[in-house]
Every structure is written in C-alpha cells, then in structure tokens.
C-alpha cells in the first residue's frame, strides 16, 4: 500500500519537526508494545484462573445442592426455612480497585472471616445443616472470586483491543507516513539543490560569454 504523505510545507524546519515527531512515535511504540505484552500476559493468566474458578463454582454449587437436599430431608422443608429465614444476612464484601499497567481492575474480598452463613440455632439443627452451610460459604467465596475475575477479563480484553489499535496505527500508518514524508522532503531538497547547481552553471556560462 503506498504511504500517504502528510501535508506540510517543504521547508527545513518542517523536516526537523517531522524527524522529531518520528522519534517520539518510535518511542511511544516501544512503550505501547511493552504494555501490550504485559496486558496480554495478565489476560491469559486471568483467563486460566477464570476457567478454574468457574469449574470450582459449579462443583461447589452441585455439592451444596446435594448437602442442602439431605438437610431438608432430615429437618423438613418448613422447619429448615423457618430456621434459615430468621438468620438471613447479606454477605460483607470489601470492594476496591487495583491498577495493572494503567487498567483499573476491581478487587473483591469476602469479609466476616468467611463465615457469613452461620447464625441459626445450633440446638434445633443438625450437623447436616452445618455441612450445607459450610459448603454454601464456599459457593459464596467462589461467586465473589469469579465476579472479580470475569470483570477483570472483560476490562483487560477491552484495553488490549484499544492498545492493539494504537500499536497498529503507529506501525502501519503514523510511522510509515512520517518516514515517507521525510523521504519525500529529502528528495525535494536534493532536487532543489540540483536545480540550483544547474542554474548557477548556466549563469556562469552566460557571464563568461557576455
């Protein structure tokens, strides 16, 4: 593809400016490429962890469902519901942000020492319910972990796309455009020099004749 030239006045000052801009573009390309490699590494790492967290979440939920079914069978649905409704509390999640190479990623952490589900009467309930509650806590932890990972994955993916577009613009548009314009200006100046020399020679001949 022929490179598009930047519309500039063919002067030496413009040439110096273009050379400076080319140096800046090359420097920025280096930084952007480094950032892209770091973001890609983090993205792949997060993707691997997301797969693992998803598998853990599915396993945890299936185990919890089984344990809860057994507990329901033992206590009876109404008795169990009565016991659990009275102790219903929302989990405490500490949310914050962390920064990966300029991308702000959410960070979630379950608080309450990881035991937000216990609060029911231990006298009226059995160890089956304890087991189900223990597994439910694991489910909650896995859900919070997956939420963080999935959002991180989305944000990193979007940033990689954006950075890649900048890298491509630099690599295929800006830098070649600047190089082509510098080459064009250099050629123009050389041509002007040659014309000047030819003109001087012609003047010299005319002066010698006259």
């Amino acid at each position, binding site marked *: 593809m*022929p*490179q*598009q*030239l*930047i*519309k*500039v006045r063919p002067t030496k000052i413009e040439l110096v400016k273009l050379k400076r801009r080319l140096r*800046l*573009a090359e*420097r*920025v390309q*280096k*930084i*952007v*490429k*480094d*950032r892209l*490699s*770091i973001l890609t*590494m*983090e993205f792949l*790492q997060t993707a691997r*962890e997301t797969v693992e967290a998803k598998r853990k979440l599915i396993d945890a939920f299936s185990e919890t469902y089984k344990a809860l079914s057994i507990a329901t069978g033992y206590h009876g649905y109404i008795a169990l519901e009565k016991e659990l409704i009275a102790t219903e509390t929302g989990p405490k999640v*500490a949310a*914050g*942000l*962390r*920064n*990966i*190479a*300029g991308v*702000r990623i959410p*960070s979630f*952490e379950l608080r309450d020492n990881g035991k937000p589900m216990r609060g029911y009467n231990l006298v009226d309930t059995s160890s089956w319910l304890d087991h189900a509650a223990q597994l439910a806590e694991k489910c909650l932890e896995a859900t919070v972990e997956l939420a963080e990972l999935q959002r991180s994955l989305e944000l990193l993916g979007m940033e990689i796309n954006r950075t890649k577009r*900048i890298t491509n*613009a*630099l690599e295929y*548009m*800006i830098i070649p*455009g600047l190089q*082509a*314009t510098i080459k*064009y200006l250099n050629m123009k100046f050389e041509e002007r020099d040659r014309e000047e020399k030819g003109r001087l020679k012609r003047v010299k001949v005319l002066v010698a004749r006259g």
Partner: protein
Amino acid sequence: MMPTNLPYERMLQECLRGELRVVNAGLPRSQKQLSTLLREEYPHIVCSDGSTHSFKKKELEHLASMIDTDKQESLLLPMLIELGPNQAEAAIICQTDVEEKVISEILNMPVTPKQGRITIYKPQLALLRKALKTTTQYVFSPKILE
C-alpha cells in the same frame, strides 16, 4: 505521490500523549509497611494519579506468614516490578533482604539481588503475579526508551 492530510493524525497524537501518562498512573505516591497495612481495615495506598490501590487481606496475611514479625516493618508494599528495555526480563526493586526472601519463597528458587534489583524472566513473572496480585505493581522504566 501527492501530499495528503491524515485526518486522524492530531487525534492520534493526543492519544499517544495520553498513553505516556496512563502507563505509570498506577504508581504509588508512597509505599506502606506490611505491618501498617495489616492493621488497616481496608488496606490501600494512594496512586500518583490520585486513585486508590487496594490490597487483599488474604494476600497480606500470606506475605506475613512468610516472614518474621520483626521484619514485617521492613517490607514496603506494593513491591515494584520494573520493566526495562529487554522485554524478556523484569526487575523487582529490592530495598531490603526481605523482598529477596519473599521472592525466593514464592518462586521456589534462590534469587540474588544485583544493584538493588532482582532480575526474573517472563514465566517467573507470571508465577509471581499469580501469587501476589495486589501486592506487586508494574513500573515502566524510562530506560525502555533508550
């Protein structure tokens, strides 16, 4: 070839200037001691762009379990991972010998600091970041531009 005006040139120039600002925006204004962070309810530091960087309690406790209680004051967090001109390597800025101990324990191999920096390779960097997600931070060194 006729000279033409690139329509997005100015916009891209602005983008590029922004990019330079963005890469090191997450650097901490000041690092905090591990012992201080362990005492905080919501451990965090303030970044150079004014945003906050939160630490996970679990991660801090994991770090605390690796080192002695009296050495917790010497460990400054987040640990800084410097990315230099060589893309295959990264350097962890090491102010005391505590960092050395932590890194060698996580990577499960001995490491030696050279001029205040522990050099590690990309696969080791991935391992380190997996274990210490919130307690490490990337620094894009100006040497990248050399």
